[in-house]
């Protein structure tokens, strides 16, 4: 059996393999290091960072839904400076790309964080303009193409790092948003973040989440995610990192065929902490079986 070439080059960001883990679902890597050799993951999107420490939303923060989950973590994180000092050195021990997920309430927040992170060893920034779990800014940025263009452009000007823009699926036309990010200077796009949903406790007659609404992730959203990855990768020339409900190698193949240059695994980590490695293996076997010699040959090959 010939070794399959699993490396991908995302517009300059080189990953040893196209399997990344999604922001907010893999902490800062430490917790899963007991389960997965982090050296074997293509890239790690760390938990969403903000300028200052954030305590996040009140409990409960999670609801199980049919083949999905709603979360309302609200960007609990120790702040970007703490990350740089205490988490980044840990992650940099490993041979994997470290991607800092940044979140702001204002354009200035994003720019400041980008600036701060420019002088560190992070490999890329993932600008989250789509988190549904914060009150100001957040999701508003992600739903208006003009804002997406503006925030991307300004962050682009404030940092020398590879810049990924992460899109919200809660929009009428994801293509427009993707094109705005590209025009603003994004090196890469990642999608999807969570759909906005709500779950109600019918005995207590109140929402299960303390904040009422939360972000829907997991297999339930996969059909929407595949569609959006397909739509966006058709209209932009920068690579797309696809995510949303990937549970096994077959799901991953759907995203690659739809046009994703890499994928990210989120909720599935919670169910099976070794899922990223199982998907990597499954992908290699699939490529082998189908007669490919590299993952690159699969990307965007949907016959349609």
């Amino acid at each position, binding site marked *: 059996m010939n070794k399959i070439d699993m490396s991908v080059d995302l517009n300059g960001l080189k990953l040893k393999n196209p399997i990344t883990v999604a922001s*907010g*679902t*893999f*902490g800062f890597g*430490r*917790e*899963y290091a*007991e*389960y*997965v*050799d982090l050296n074997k993951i293509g890239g790690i999107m760390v*938990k969403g960072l903000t300028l200052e420490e954030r*305590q*996040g939303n*009140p*409990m*409960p*923060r*999670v*609801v*199980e*839904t*049919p*083949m*999905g*989950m709603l*979360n309302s*973590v609200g960007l*609990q994180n120790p702040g970007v400076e703490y990350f740089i000092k205490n988490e980044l050195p840990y992650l940099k021990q490993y041979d994997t790309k470290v991607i800092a997920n940044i979140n702001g309430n204002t354009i200035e927040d994003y720019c400041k964080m980008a600036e701060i992170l420019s002088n560190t060893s992070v490999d890329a920034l993932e600008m989250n303009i789509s988190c549904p779990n914060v009150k100001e800014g957040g999701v508003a940025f992600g739903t208006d193409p003009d804002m997406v263009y503006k925030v991307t452009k300004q962050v682009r000007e404030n940092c020398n790092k590879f810049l990924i823009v992460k899109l919200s699926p809660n929009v009428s036309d994801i293509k427009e948003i993707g094109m705005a990010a590209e025009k603003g200077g994004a090196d890469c796009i990642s999608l999807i973040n969570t759909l906005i949903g709500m779950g109600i406790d019918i005995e207590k007659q109140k929402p299960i989440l303390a904040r009422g609404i939360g972000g829907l992730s*997991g*297999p339930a959203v996969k059909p929407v995610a595949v569609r959006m990855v397909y739509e966006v990768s058709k209209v932009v020339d920068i690579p797309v990192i696809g995510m949303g409900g990937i549970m096994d190698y077959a799901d991953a193949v759907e995203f690659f065929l739809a046009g994703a240059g890499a994928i990210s695994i989120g*909720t599935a*980590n*919670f*169910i*099976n*902490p*070794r899922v990223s490695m199982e998907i990597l293996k499954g992908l290699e076997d699939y490529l082998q079986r189908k007669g490919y010699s590299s993952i690159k040959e699969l990307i965007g090959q949907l016959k349609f």
Partner: protein
Amino acid sequence: MKDRMFCKVLSNVEIAKDIHKLEIERIDGFGEIKPGQFLHIKCGGEGLLLRRPISISYIEKDRIGLIIRRAGKGTKLLCDKKVGETLDVLGPLGNGFSIDDEVEKVIVIGGGIGTAPLLELVKSLKGKDIAVLLGYRDEPYLVDDFEQWVKGVKVATEDGSFGYKGYVTDLLEEEIKNNRVDIIYACGPEIMLKKVQDICNRYKKKSQLSIEERMACGVGACLVCTCKVKAEEKGVKYVRTCKDGPVFWGDEVMFHE
């Protein structure tokens, strides 16, 4: 590297209405287990995505005992598992109870399904002077199992059908009042734990509380299970029930509202 494990169900007995004692294989992968730790279990079933946290109730050489209350869809599936079926299990997870060898006189207090993890705790406290207080709404369970290790288990039921009629925390207050106590270990519904916290505050007693919070990952990565605790510097700290807990010191836990 750790991995999830697939363990056979060795026995499944309904020990009280809607309460099952499930024994599963203790395979090598589990490694060392501390009382108070839990397993994160995939229940299968239509549309159920997440694992369910279930405390380890007791450990034997070849098996782990779980006590499961039929609460919703997931625990129902667990209660219906047949001998020979396989469970997909992650664990042991969480910190477990801290046991201080110096301590002599201990109270162990459990409410409802919260009695489950206390069984292994009691086993590992052997040699100390232990008072066990168990509270139930109506039908008690596990009492005989505790009696195997500690004589004189006291039981409270809310409807008075067995033992003391009323809350188990009433028994706690009495016990604390009338005896020297070094530490209290508690597990049960939040309302009970709050009362235990109150009583321990009033009588200035150390306590360890095992709390419940909804979970996703169970390993400390997703932050959906945060618990507020008092911290020296900033006054409050956000910790993870799954990883930093589920057992916390009684004087640090800040219950919701």
